[in-house]
């Protein structure tokens, strides 16, 4: 009796699984297709000649051309922009991860009087838009003598990424049970040791997510870079693309080519990061 009931249940589970799987694929493919239509448009436009872009709008190029890409890389030194963005984004991400891990750990695992205030103050960084803040920020940067430098940019981006990282990491840290660290400390570990050996590894998905946000934010930011950077050699990717627009006629071909080239490193980043988002990192840790 029990065997047939179990096999019946297993059978229905298997059937449900198949249905769920097919349904999942269908939905996913549909969503990705719709979400990617603008991307498709960008790629297709980057391969068209200007005349075709304006006069013969269509979903497929009539004539394929690589001149937009060639012009970007050869004439506009776009690869230099990519290099600069890479430097800035990597520095911002790594420093931000360290500082915000500490801060989030503090806000989640410790008790002290002004904890609530501390947490909220760092969020107030976002309350006024950069379209207003850029003036006092440029005054600050000038006083620190960091004008027209990648270091100045890193500093500014760091400040704006910290609130996000700290608060998000708080959310992820809360998902890891305290008992694990407390167990480790009973076994003789220090607080910092517990942070590094227990909490951080178990929050790897959260760290990966925060790394993605910080890197993307630093990679794509335009206004502050525009104000801060004057030299062509120090331009980041958004600046490089922005300076393709010289007047009131937009060079769509090169613009889209720039967008495509700049998204390649990002795609690589996302692929690597999502590999940390594997379920079951917390399983098997606390039994009984």
């Amino acid at each position, binding site marked *: 009796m029990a065997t047939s009931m179990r096999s019946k249940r297993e059978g229905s589970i298997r059937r449900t699984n198949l249905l769920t799987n097919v349904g999942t694929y269908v939905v996913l493919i549909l969503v990705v297709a719709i979400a990617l239509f603008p991307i498709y448009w960008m790629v297709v436009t980057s391969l068209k*000649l*200007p*005349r075709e872009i*304006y*006069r013969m*709008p269509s979903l497929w190029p009539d004539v394929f051309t690589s001149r937009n890409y060639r012009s970007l890389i050869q004439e506009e030194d776009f690869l230099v922009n990519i290099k600069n963005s890479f430097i800035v984004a990597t520095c911002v991400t790594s420093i931000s991860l360290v500082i915000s891990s500490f801060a989030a750990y503090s806000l989640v695992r410790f008790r002290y009087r002004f904890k609530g205030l501390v947490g909220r103050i760092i969020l107030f960084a976002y309350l006024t838009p950069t379209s207003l803040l*850029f*003036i*006092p920020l*440029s*005054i600050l*940067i*000038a*006083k620190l003598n960091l*004008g027209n430098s990648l270091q100045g940019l890193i500093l500014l981006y760091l400040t704006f990424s910290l609130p996000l990282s700290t608060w998000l990491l708080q959310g992820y840290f809360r998902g890891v049970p305290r008992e694990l660290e407390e167990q480790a400390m009973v076994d003789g570990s220090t607080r910092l040791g517990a942070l590094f050996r227990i909490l951080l590894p178990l929050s790897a998905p959260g760290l990966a997510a925060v790394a993605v946000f910080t890197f993307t934010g630093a990679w794509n930011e335009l*206004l502050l870079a*525009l*104000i801060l950077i*004057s*030299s062509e050699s120090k331009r980041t990717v958004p600046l490089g693309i*922005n*300076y393709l*627009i*010289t*007047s*009131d*006629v*937009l060079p769509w071909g090169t613009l889209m080519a720039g967008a495509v080239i700049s998204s390649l490193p990002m795609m690589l980043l996302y692929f690597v990061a999502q590999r940390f988002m594997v379920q079951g990192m917390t399983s098997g840790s606390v039994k009984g």
Partner: protein
Amino acid sequence: MTMNNRITRRRVLGTSVAGAAAVGLAGSRLQESLAARKAPSHIQASGKVTYWGGLIFSDEANNLLSETITKWGEDNGVETEVVMINQNETNQKVSAAVESGTMPDALDMGLDLLLLLSSQKEILAPLDDLYTKIGDAQGGWYESMAASTDTTAIAGGRTGIPFGASGNLILRRNDALSAAGFTAAPATWEEMVTQAKAVQAPPLYGLGLALSNVGDGNVQMSVLQSYGGRIADDEGKTVTIKSDATRTYLQWVKDAWDAGIFPPGNTTWDGAGDNQAYLAGQAAFIANTGSVAIAARNDDPELFEATAYSPLPAGPNGIISPTNPNVRAISAKSANMDAAKALVEFLSNPEFMAAYFNVAIYGPVLKNQATFPAYNGENLILAGLLDLVSNGTPPGFPDKYNTAYGDFSANFIVPKMVQRVVIDGYDFDKAMDEAQTQGQAIYDKYK
């Protein structure tokens, strides 16, 4: 109007090729002769001389400016740095630079920024002697340039040296219009609507004028003024936009809108909207400074050949066609005042400007410049700009172009008024009342 010569592709391409060649092949010759114009030997520059140049649509012009300044620096033992800036961001960059004390030594700008900066103390240096010197050496400044850049009242002296004039021309699809029987340019706005209706055949729309919150939308201010409407009184203090003349103008817009001759989306076009419509073959008439012609010349010769140019048409009160000056200015706090002045003076010399005008989209500012090869009539856009400088109206005319007027324009009150009528369905009085109240609130700030 001498604009009815049928343009031939060969002729204009020939000019442009010659122009480019003049820059390229003879570039070294140019630079050599420019090098002969050494700066006075007492030029001492402590550190770098920075120049911020505004990017225009012509890459050749931008490069020419950049290279010439750098070469000047080399020839005179002055270290220079040229930074080319997008015109959309000049305002922000300059604001940040003024506030943080990092202004360049010299820069170029348009009229709005010149007025804004000149009305505050100690931002731009007075350049009256330089202005007079250059004017005297080259036949005198055009009246429109002299009048519009006169900052003596607000800054105690002239702070901008004009170098190029820009303004809107009407570009029209000569092929479609001739086929409909119209070979002459429209002389009035009413005529333009008639012609637009005749060639209207979606996807080709007749009247590619912007009604959105961008600079192109402010062409409507000129239309309103050509109908006799006024933004403010002669003192430039009381807003007088609500009037019968404005009502007539609004009727013109509404009739055009109801006839469906505006391309869809023109109430939210960005600065490139009208250009894109024209380049895509979706507009028969647009108002443009010349960049579209260059784009067509480079990428779409067929369209280029089919395009004809004319000045803005007249309203019942005549033609209102603003000629906008572009000026070079020097920061009052510059550590290299002498070198900066020498650079600005150098940049106005005839050899450089002749070569520059060949590849840029500006009209002349000094009377002698009318004899440059750029303005010999072959290039119809440049010919149109020459005409604009000689016969166009000062910016804001008949209104007084003070900072209040600039603020009024920056808030796009007139395009908004039109949007209220055509999108929200306000009756004329309600729309005019709102523009009047908001306009007066703006003007009151500057009392």
